[in-house]
């Protein structure tokens, strides 16, 4: 059977506010257990929530970024269920009136095509704490530091049809929220977590199949792998004539499989109702418009500008704008060298190569964008050639100093004096009289193949410092005799 996969994603994005969604406790990763908690986060009797202004602003920014309707009157609702990491016995979330309504994103796939993914809604909610399963007298420990941390839950339509598309969509969301500065994007620390709703249906069938929900997947790679394994699992069941059970599953990266979460099997009735401790959040058009006016340039806008302003290819523009840090690096380097194509090639080439090798984020590059730009200047003005530049860059990476200092110290300056080059060529021609004879006797096609030999000899004699742009024409002229 030929199956079509149908995927919808719920992305929980932790907003990078200083304090919590409903309390003045600090937000942060890795603090000692329960040291970042207040009455509100602990659900103490008589504690009351007050809504964080910045979380609201961030949610509205996101709404604008995905072309969404902004909820001018949004309402917090309580989602009631018992769990030890949920101190109040309810999660304060939004149900009928979310802060961000319908929107969409155009996602660029690897093959260069674009697909539009609908976004149903994005709503504000508080995070839960954490259950620590290390053994404490055979019990579970509860840390509520994360309790009441602001989350924006971004819910997509079931518009996604492949693992690759899912990853491209999540990457795009990641890129947007980090561009906006509303999330640090640190997936390893759980700043972005993804729930995957997945079902299969025979190609051509209209109605959806029964779906499963894979909870809390927190890396791009795991999202892709979890989708592949779940597709396989569901397809196996369906092809054996079985039925998919609607359930919550967990992805185990070590075994690369999904398994049913028994604890969530209990059919839940969340008894949503408007939270009586919070009031409707009513926005003015002016507030919403002001946020729109101050929105930073978004990845797609930046890519378009890179194409129009810097004449970069669509591919280069998209790669460079995929992360705000990389785009900023490119722009600073290009500001120094004023050669967009050269800067783009080097950022996407040599810089990215070394960053990947050492698994470094561009923000932590040992060579900053200004110094990088200065290196590129020396390529552009022919002080060094591309090959030498790679060595200089490696030396810069190793902390040996600026491009100019390294070129100076190692005497890597290109020879651009035509007299010196002519003398060098003459020496080579004299020492290889036989080859010169052969060259002169050959036809034009053969000559083109043979000239490489002489170029190589010249470069060798100059220790790579002869400017290839000068060597070639002079050599051709002198070989003619």
């Amino acid at each position: 059977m030929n199956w079509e996969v149908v995927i919808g994603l719920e992305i929980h994005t932790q907003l990078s506010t200083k304090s919590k969604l409903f309390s003045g406790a600090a937000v942060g990763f890795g603090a000692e257990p329960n040291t970042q908690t207040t009455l509100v986060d602990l659900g103490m009797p008589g504690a009351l929530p007050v809504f964080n202004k910045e979380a609201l602003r961030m949610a509205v920014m996101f709404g604008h970024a995905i072309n969404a309707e902004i909820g001018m009157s949004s309402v917090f609702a309580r989602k009631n269920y018992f769990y030890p990491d949920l101190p109040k016995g309810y999660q304060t979330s939004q149900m009928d009136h979310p802060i961000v309504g319908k929107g969409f994103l155009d996602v660029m796939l690897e093959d260069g095509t674009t697909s539009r993914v609908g976004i149903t809604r994005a709503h504000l909610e508080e995070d839960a704490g954490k259950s620590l399963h290390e053994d404490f007298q055979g019990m579970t420990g509860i840390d509520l530091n994360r309790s009441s941390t602001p989350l924006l839950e971004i819910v997509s339509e079931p518009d996604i049809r492949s693992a690759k598309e899912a990853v491209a969509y999540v990457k795009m969301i990641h890129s947007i929220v980090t561009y906006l500065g509303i999330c640090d994007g640190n997936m390893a620390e759980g700043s972005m977590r993804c729930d995957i709703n997945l079902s299969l249906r025979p190609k051509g069938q209209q109605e959806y199949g029964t779906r499963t929900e894979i909870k809390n997947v927190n890396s791009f790679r795991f999202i892709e792998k979890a989708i592949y394994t779940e597709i396989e699992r569901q397809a196996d069941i369906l092809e054996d004539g079985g039925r998919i059970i609607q359930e919550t599953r967990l992805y185990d990266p070590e075994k690369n499989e999904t398994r049913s979460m028994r604890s969530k099997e209990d059919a839940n009735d969340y008894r949503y109702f408007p939270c009586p401790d919070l009031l409707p959040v009513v926005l003015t058009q002016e507030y919403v418009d002001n946020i729109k006016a101050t929105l930073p340039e978004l990845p797609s806008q930046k890519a378009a500008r890179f194409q129009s302003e810097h004449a970069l290819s669509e591919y280069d523009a998209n790669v460079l704008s995929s992360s705000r840090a990389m785009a900023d690096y490119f722009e600073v380097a290009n500001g120094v060298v004023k050669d967009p194509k050269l800067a783009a090639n080097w950022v996407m080439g040599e810089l990215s190569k070394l960053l990947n090798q050492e698994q470094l984020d561009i923000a932590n590059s040992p060579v900053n964008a200004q110094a990088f730009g200065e290196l590129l200047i020396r390529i552009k003005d022919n002080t060094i050639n591309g090959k030498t530049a790679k060595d200089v860059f490696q030396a810069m990476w190793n902390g040996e100093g600026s491009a100019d200092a390294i070129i100076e110290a190692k005497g890597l300056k290109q020879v651009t004096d035509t007299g010196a080059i002519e003398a060098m060529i003459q020496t080579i021609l004299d020492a290889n009289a036989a080859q010169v004879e052969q060259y002169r006797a050959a036809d034009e096609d053969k000559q083109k193949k043979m000239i490489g030999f002489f170029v190589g000899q010249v470069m060798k004699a100059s220790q790579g410092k002869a400017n290839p742009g000068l060597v070639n024409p002079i050599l051709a002229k002198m070989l003619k005799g």
Partner: protein
Amino acid sequence: MSIDKQDVQKIAHLARLALTEADADQYQHSLSSVLSLVEQMQSVDTDGIEPLSNPLEMTQRLREDIVTEENRRDAFLANAPQTEAGLFLVPKVID
């Protein structure tokens, strides 16, 4: 409006209340009488009436995003039935 004992047990489970058989009998009776009492609402025509959840119909005030609270973990943990290493302890949670 009356509910059966199975309903009572279902509600009690949702509300995390352990009921004995005798409790369930008693609550079946008392819940049914409360539900009959509130049943009279159904005869009222409320078409077009907006629900009222806050009597003053005010809107939400916003708090500045600043950290105002200090760590008072020990004071909070002092009321907990069981703790260790700064954590609240509960019977094993199985995911």
